[in-house]
């Protein structure tokens, strides 16, 4: 028989909360704040730029002119116009060329580092690639301005070496190390058993890579390219220095263009706070924010899909 009521006693102390308990709670709270702050900051930034930009979108914005016109004349005293078609074309052409430059480079480098290089060569290369990724963008811009510019003038016999070609190459070289690192991670995530299974069937090294490893790591590789695109799209300083800064839809690789990011950087300091010009620049910011967000989100989703498989 069980007794009806269990005897309670306080003979052992189970209620005392010592330092360990409070430390644990404090750390839990701090880590929570740290984690939540990232979200709060992102939302804060978004709210800030939309607040400044929305006034323009609601007020002076003419959507057809905004996306369809080449005329970006925010400082015109008589009739300011805000057409960003030229800026979009500049960003798109430069980012596009950058991808043409960096995708073959970085995939090749990732395959070499991940599948061919061994031991010290491999470790050295990885460190070097990471070092490349850490070069500040102003240094890349400087290289574009003072090294690539005269080179392009010499080789192609054109009057100016700043433009789509110059900034595309510079941006491509900038994006390549990050893409290489991520692509190499994607290849490393492919289990060795896949390689062994294919090798045991008599597949050559190249067949193993091309038919088994690359398809198996496909999602990670796509993510690497997308993050590279995001990097190129959002880059400002190098583009500012190497594009030549003129608003137009490029018809040749030697044409000078300007990018969304570079325009904001160049003009925000001069635009009176609260003016239409100032707010229009913030609208560009919203556009950049949304596009980069979509690119990164897509990359993230692709990576997650890779992880689930």
């Amino acid at each position, binding site marked *: 028989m069980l007794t009806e009521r269990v005897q309670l006693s306080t003979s052992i102390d189970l209620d005392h909360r010592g330092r360990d308990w409070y430390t644990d709670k404090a750390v839990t709270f701090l880590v929570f704040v740290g984690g939540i702050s990232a979200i709060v900051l992102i939302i804060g930034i978004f709210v800030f730029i939309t607040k400044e930009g929305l006034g323009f979108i609601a007020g002076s914005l003419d959507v057809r002119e905004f996306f369809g016109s080449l005329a970006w004349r925010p400082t015109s005293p008589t009739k300011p116009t805000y057409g960003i078609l030229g800026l979009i074309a500049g960003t798109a052409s430069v980012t596009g060329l950058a991808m043409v430059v960096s995708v073959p480079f970085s995939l090749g480098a990732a395959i070499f580092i991940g599948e061919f290089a061994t031991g010290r060569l491999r470790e050295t290369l990885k460190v070097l690639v990471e070092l490349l990724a850490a070069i500040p963008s102003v240094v890349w811009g400087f290289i574009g301005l003072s090294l690539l510019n005269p080179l392009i003038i010499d080789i192609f016999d054109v009057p100016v070496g700043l433009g789509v070609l110059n900034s595309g190459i510079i941006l491509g070289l900038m994006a390549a190390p990050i893409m290489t690192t991520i692509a190499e991670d994607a290849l490393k995530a492919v289990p060795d058993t896949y390689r062994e299974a294919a090798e045991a069937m*008599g597949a050559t090294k190249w067949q193993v890579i091309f038919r088994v490893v690359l398809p198996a790591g496909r999602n990670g590789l796509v993510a690497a390219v997308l993050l590279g695109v995001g990097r190129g799209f959002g880059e400002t300083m190098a583009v500012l220095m190497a594009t030549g800064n003129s608003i137009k839809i490029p018809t040749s690789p030697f044409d000078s263009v300007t990018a969304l990011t570079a325009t904001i950087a160049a003009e925000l300091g001069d635009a009176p706070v609260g003016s239409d010009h100032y707010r229009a620049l913030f609208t560009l910011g919203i556009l950049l924010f949304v596009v980069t967000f979509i690119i990164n989100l897509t990359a993230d989703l692709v990576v997650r899909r890779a992880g689930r498989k």
Partner: protein
Amino acid sequence: MVATDVKLAVRDLNISYGGQRALSGVSLDVHEHEIFGIIGPAGSGKTSFLRTLNRMEIHHKDMTVEGSIVFDGRDISRVKNVYALRRHIGVVFPLPVGLPMSIYDNVALAPRLSGIKKKVALDEIVERCLTRAALWDEVKERLDGLGSLLSGGQQQRLTIARALSQEPKLLLLDEFSIAVDPVTTMRIEDVLKELKQELTIILVTNLVQQARRLADRTAFFLNGELIEVGETEAFFTGEVKDQRTLDYLEGRFG
């Protein structure tokens, strides 16, 4: 003649990993159309032995191999195209490896690598190999499903189908039943008995009873040495030359 039906002749084979001996002085013959069992405790050199037969050692920098292995009259250390050699020697690893592509592509991979492109020919190979691996009936409705999503036992049969897809003359199985349920194991064992008519099989196994069920002759490896080779039935009726073989068979050490 005895000499003609020797499929694989191994003489004085030494394998070491960076100076550490894994296998020493192994000499044996494997006959055509037999299942040759290899038993022995973990670390006895069984897997190293199998890897050498397929020249997989070239992927291990610190693995060195001495001695001679003659497959179908060719010394395999002298072949100029190691990939061609591997197409004649199929391997099934302990853990099933369904490659992350469709079931069809898993089996068609090797034929495609060797240049077969015609859909009809590939269809025929896929169906024949899956049938021989006793998997066809289970997957014929979903050949475009992912091979890596099959169950463990199915993936192992898929691996066998893949190994058969190039018509190998020699099939190496390394503890194939380690990740497979007993029922599937029995099905695969039946498959192997059938396959024996067409090719030669070397079966490395941890399960002494599996060797007894399948192998015509069995070799006992211990600590990197070949203790003895004999008719499997003789082993199990106690006709062994070495006391250690008997001890192992009867589970007196492990």
